[in-house]
């Protein structure tokens, strides 16, 4: 943990107290398995009040310490999550795991600075953060602590390479962190608690909310083949309701991504331009998804530009 983060956190304490209390009132967590707590994000658009509370967040309590999985889209939400941890345990937060680089999952990191957790992420996360940090600081200052600075968005101290799962010991339970090849983003990380067979998928899995493609369409489809077969009894998606049927939860997303691939390949074969493809509104199964209009054009643009080079 960079010392700047720790130092700055002292000054932050007073500033955070008020929003922490205000935010805690409507911030809830649920124990989905023994010692595994989940806050379910809201199905809100990206530009409305509450946009900082759209991702699922969680924490897992061992006998030695606590691991937090994603911190929310603002320091305010991160502080509310930290307050929830404190209502359930006084053990220290030893690990703060970020499932990927998107703001709704990591802008709350700074709320945990005083706990001095080890920050963990995908091996590509440091680079992704360095590409995005200035942008976040400039455009999301209101979601960070006052005087938003780079110290609020430090790079992970420890990273996980694709193909080399990392095991963390919380005391009495082991977490397995897996880094995935480019899928939803180029830095997706999943977390598996073997004691309860609970899988935090990060945004590899969207339930109900339209999946957003920022990585690789083919890579994501390939990842889902593997993900769907993991031996999970509880699944916590990045967005949408947690459940107990992993393969069933993955299927709609897999169908959507496959359809996206087929639709765009068809458009390319027919000579449809990118502009025309973006304008198209017909899409099989679109009524199954929330916040479609926000996400679908972006996905079409990404898929089109990848598939046109096949």
């Amino acid at each position, binding site marked *: 943990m960079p010392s700047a983060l720790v130092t700055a956190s002292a000054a932050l304490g007073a500033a955070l107290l008020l929003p922490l209390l205000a935010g805690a009132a409507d911030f809830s967590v649920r124990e989905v398995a023994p010692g595994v707590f989940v806050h379910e994000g809201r199905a809100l658009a990206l530009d409305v009040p509450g946009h900082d509370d759209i991702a699922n967040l969680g924490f897992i309590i061992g006998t030695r310490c606590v691991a937090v999985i994603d911190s929310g889209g603002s320091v305010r939400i991160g502080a509310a999550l930290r307050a929830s941890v404190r209502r359930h345990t006084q053990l220290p937060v030893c690990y703060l795991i970020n499932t990927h680089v998107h703001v709704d999952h990591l802008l709350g990191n700074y709320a945990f600075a005083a706990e001095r957790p080890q920050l963990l992420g995908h091996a590509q996360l440091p680079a992704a953060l360095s590409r995005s940090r200035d*942008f976040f600081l400039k455009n999301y200052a209101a979601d960070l602590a006052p005087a938003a600075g780079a110290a609020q968005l430090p790079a992970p101290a420890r990273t996980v390479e694709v193909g080399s799962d990392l095991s963390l010991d919380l005391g009495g339970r082991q977490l397995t962190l897996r880094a995935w090849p480019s899928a939803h983003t180029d830095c997706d990380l999943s977390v598996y608690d073997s004691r309860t067979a609970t899988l935090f998928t990060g945004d590899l899995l969207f339930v109900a909310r339209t999946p957003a493609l920022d990585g690789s369409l083919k890579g994501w489809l390939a990842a889902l083949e593997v993900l769907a077969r993991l031996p999970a009894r509880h699944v916590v998606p990045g967005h949408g309701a947690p459940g107990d049927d992993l393969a069933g939860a993955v299927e709609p997303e897999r169908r959507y991504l496959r359809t996206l691939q087929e639709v765009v390949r068809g458009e390319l074969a027919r000579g449809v331009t990118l502009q025309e493809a973006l304008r198209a509104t017909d899409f099989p199964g679109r009524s199954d998804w929330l916040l479609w209009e926000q996400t679908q054009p972006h996905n079409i643009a990404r898929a089109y530009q990848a598939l046109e080079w096949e």
Partner: protein
Amino acid sequence: MRRRAKAVPGALQHTAPGALLLACAVALAASLARGEQSPPNGAWQTMRANLYGARPISETDDALMSIEAPASTPDPSATPLVVRFGAPLAGRVRQLRVIIDNNPSPLVTTMNLRAGLPVEEIDLRVRIDRYTSVRAIAETTDGQLEMRSAWVNASGGCSAPPSASAGGMLGEIRFRASADDKALQVSIRHPNNSGFQIDAKSGDPIPPHFISHLRLRAGDDTLVDADTGISLSENPTLRIASREALQGPLVFEATDVPSQRLFTATWNAAAASAGTR
């Protein structure tokens, strides 16, 4: 999604998600809260004087000329722009400039067209760094100037990481023609690095590496000749649609900077064309 000429920006709900894209809406909301209706156009005022002096520029009549761009781009690193010329202009445009007011490098292209080539549509993909006006200025063979513009809400196009389309073989060229050969799209596999991106491994800035010039010619007869730069998307893509079928073979050339290497490929009309899909 679509916008012709000038209109009041809106469609806050149309902003795409993603780390970089998410903030588009936030930024626009902030600008609207401050009462700003249109993006600042300082770059254009300077460029207008430099490029066109005090010459009059007509901005009316969408039937004559129009520009189409998404009001809120789904991909700031590759936003599609379409410029259309109506019947009175097709074949009478000798030069087209595209300018993105608020980009670090506003002049996207200066494109010369062969007189008489009845071009009805030109498509480009561009990087858009932030909320901006995007303009197309056409100069006719008799020296008249026509401009159309659109507002595009975007953020991060010039610093966005290489997208899903990154990779492949540098300089690979793809042609896509319409069945009647009236429209031809040419794309070149190239990072077109703006110099504003950060290397994923080292964290250092990626030096500019871009396509500075595009040319489409039939033998010595140049149809399209364009100076380009870092405001084109990665894998730069140009599409022209003509009133008449294009006659092959057409040679496409792209100049790489800083190497000055020339990438080239040949398109043959209709079924005879290898590499055309």
